[in-house]
């Protein structure tokens, strides 16, 4: 039996900058030099003011669960033996929101403090994930 390959991003443009940084275990976002807004995902034009001077920043990777869902059904064969799996929208302290999976928590709730942990999907792609803040478990 062959293990299904994971669904993999094929980054284009600014997405490439984000995923290249993730490969270096950096979670990146931007701030706008013109209006000061925090911007995520990475863009060429600020969605708040239209400014084109956007500064790449590294997040500390610390935030709180804005919402979550425990999925019992897999969206792709790769996830079939990974369900139930918890996906969360996390509000990072720098003021942006990221969707990722949350591991090592059976007691997830809105507001729970979490932190980012990076894991190689394969030799090309590294993805940020979240775990409850201060817990040591590695994501499965």
């Amino acid at each position, binding site marked *: 039996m062959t293990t299904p390959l*994971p*669904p*993999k*991003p*094929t*980054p*284009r443009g600014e*997405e490439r900058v984000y*995923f290249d940084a993730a490969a270096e275990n950096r979670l990146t976002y931007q701030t706008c030099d013109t209006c000061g807004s925090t911007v995520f*995902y990475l863009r060429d034009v600020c969605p708040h003011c239209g400014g084109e001077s956007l500064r790449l920043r590294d997040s500390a990777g610390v935030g709180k669960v*804005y*919402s*979550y*869902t*425990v*999925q*019992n*059904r*897999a*969206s*792709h064969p*790769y*996830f079939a033996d*990974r369900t139930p*799996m918890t*996906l969360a*929208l996390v509000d990072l302290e720098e003021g942006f*929101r*990221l*969707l*990722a*999976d949350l591991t090592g928590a059976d007691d997830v*709730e*809105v*507001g729970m403090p979490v932190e980012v942990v990076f894991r190689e*999907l394969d030799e090309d*792609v590294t*993805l940020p994930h979240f775990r409850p803040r201060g817990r040591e478990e590695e994501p499965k």
Partner: protein
Amino acid sequence: MTIRGKTAIVGIAEVDTFETRGRSPAGLAAAASKRALADAGLELSDVDGLFTTSSYYSMPTLTMSEYLGIKPRYTDSTALGGCSFIAHLGHAAAAIEAGLCDVALVCYGSTQRSDRGKLVSNAEWLAYEQPYGLLHPVGSFGLIANRHMAQFGTTSEQLAQVAVAAREWALLNPAAPYPKPLTVDDVLESTPIASPLHKLDCCLVTDGGAAAVLTSAARAQDLAKPPVYLLGTGEASNHRNVSQMPDLTATEATHSAERAMQMAGVTHADIDTAHVYDAFTISLLILLEDLGFCPKGEGGAFVADGNIAPGGSLALNTNGGGLSYTHPGMLGMFLITEAVRQLRGEAGVRQKPGAAVSLVHGMGLTLAAHATAVLGISP
């Protein structure tokens, strides 16, 4: 200048709203189109404006022109997901009023049920969502539902009441597929899909075709059925992906509805029936709040009090909706057809007596796009 009351829906039709065999999405749309024109007393050769969208065909107005053998002089394939067809009503009215076309056909077809498991979506790759296995769209609505619960104390039992009310309406619709009642326990005991949502918190997966025909209010006087006037329309949208939705429990429906009701010159007290996109129990609940049928955060109590079931204060989704009647990928056309039936007095045992004004509201994707229409029997 306004398009209020300048155009009317003069023909509607639905075909194969549960399952079909051997018919393509274009074939279903074509069959519905032919019947909607016949309903109006018009012919395919009368159509000079074509409005459609599709997740099957990348240039759907070209596909449908060829399939139907028509040569429209105005086409619009605005793609806003399931609410597209409600937006098309406004676009068609503007085009008719501007003299760009005279008879506008809005149509849709899907073989979502027959294709199940075989259909490859043509949706674009979402770099920030798909690597994590987010199940579209139910995973997104799970995120939305848990946020609504945390913020407002909404319960799974209250969400289940939405599905139960939809089934009660569906029991009055001879075309609905499941002629047996549903209980709150049935919903809560159905398969968990993406917490807090269960299988029965989700819409049906069906095939289906539907169409509507619009023309000027003047021309509508001479056709086969009583005109249903387009009194107001509004659109609003703000995101594509759920991870970019600014607030999971507040949507742009507020603005599309305000625009449509202001154009129509109606208030909530004037609305006899409402037809609101119910892809999931939580999506309907949030839309009821944002459309102003109850205050923000009180959707759970509003549905639990029986307001949306037959006999309640709001005649909502009287055909059984996406949750219990039909949901062939996009629901918008089927909200329009039921509103027109109600306003013509053709809704059988589920008829709201004396219905004169109906509100139709659709959403696209995960509460991302919104289109509202107000329809009425007087211009």
